[in-house]
């Protein structure tokens, strides 16, 4: 673990699903230091062969694991587990306890945005709203 704590300029990704893993692959290919955590070790199969970052598996809502993944010194965190409630909790922890400078969090339910208001450095991403926008754009172009 001594090695990872030396990596100051790194990206922490919580949840290795389709979004998490593809960001991890891209960032790693671009030469960035990437750490990925997921509760399920088989989720790391989504990482490409050229991924050269670190992986941690365990309960992502347990602060011990996040600390092992050095959340306290990370430059940015991308929170993309499949559970909105877990994502919101980790966003609160990252912002209020560890003061992570850049926090990106994916939420399926747009009505939960209100729970992130007032938190510093938190940027929510709503796939639902993005799809609606894209739909409007596409249909608008066809008419």
């Amino acid at each position, binding site marked *: 673990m001594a090695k990872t704590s030396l990596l100051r300029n790194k990206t922490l990704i919580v949840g290795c699903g389709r979004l998490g893993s593809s960001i991890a692959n891209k960032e790693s290919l671009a030469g960035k230091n990437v750490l990925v955590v997921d509760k399920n070790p088989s989720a790391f199969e989504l990482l490409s062969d050229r991924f050269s970052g670190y992986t941690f598996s365990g309960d992502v809502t347990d602060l011990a694991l996040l600390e092992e993944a050095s959340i306290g010194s990370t430059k940015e965190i991308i929170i993309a587990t499949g559970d909105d409630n877990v994502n*919101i909790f980790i966003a609160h922890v990252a912002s209020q*306890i560890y003061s992570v400078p850049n926090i990106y969090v994916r939420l399926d339910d747009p*009505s939960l945005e209100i729970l992130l208001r007032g938190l510093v450095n938190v940027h929510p991403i709503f796939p639902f709203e993005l799809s609606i926008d894209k739909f409007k754009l596409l249909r608008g172009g066809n008419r």
Partner: protein
Amino acid sequence: MKIVIAGGDHAADYIIKNFNKRTNKLIIINPDKEIVKTLTKNHRIPVFYGDPYKKEILETANVKGCDLFIALGYKDTDNFVACQLAKKVFNAKKCICIVSNPKNVEIFRTLGVDSVISSTYLLASSVVNESSLENLAKSMSFDNDKIVMTEIVVKDNYAISNKMIMEINFPKTGTISCIYRKPSVIIPNGKTLIRPGDSMYIVSAVKDQKDIISFIRTEKY
């Protein structure tokens, strides 16, 4: 009081039984169909079926402005979000939630949940409490461990025994709220005599507890 009970099975059942009085308005929300059935049958009150961490469900159940919101779900993060919603969106006056990971007690409090209960955490602190029984000091804390009530039994060899309270120069950081001398409870004043065998109940801030205990335990020269 308007009380919302969100999730839980046996815990929900027990709390409903205790609070189901005319003076209370209970709102019960549960995500499990079987539990909804049982609760409705046992207590003859309406139960909302749905996830208590969803805004629409809380809206339908009309939890707005409730006095107490109790989250009893299985997942800590679900309870956290339910409490946050209750507080931020529906102006709940007080939120209580249970957690299964005892480490979350401190974290949830830091993040703004009023009261967090973990059975493991309680078990651990009661083990500590029982083991300090030998030292004849028991304590109980209030308001997120800021205020503490200490129970100490006075022994014959203590400097304060057989003295009046006005004589002992009791630390200003604590108050002797009552003294239990079988079979009666005494509300002390300066002239109350402290006798060996008395149980003293002292209220203080947690940080001053140690000093007060060592003051009381000071032995006679």
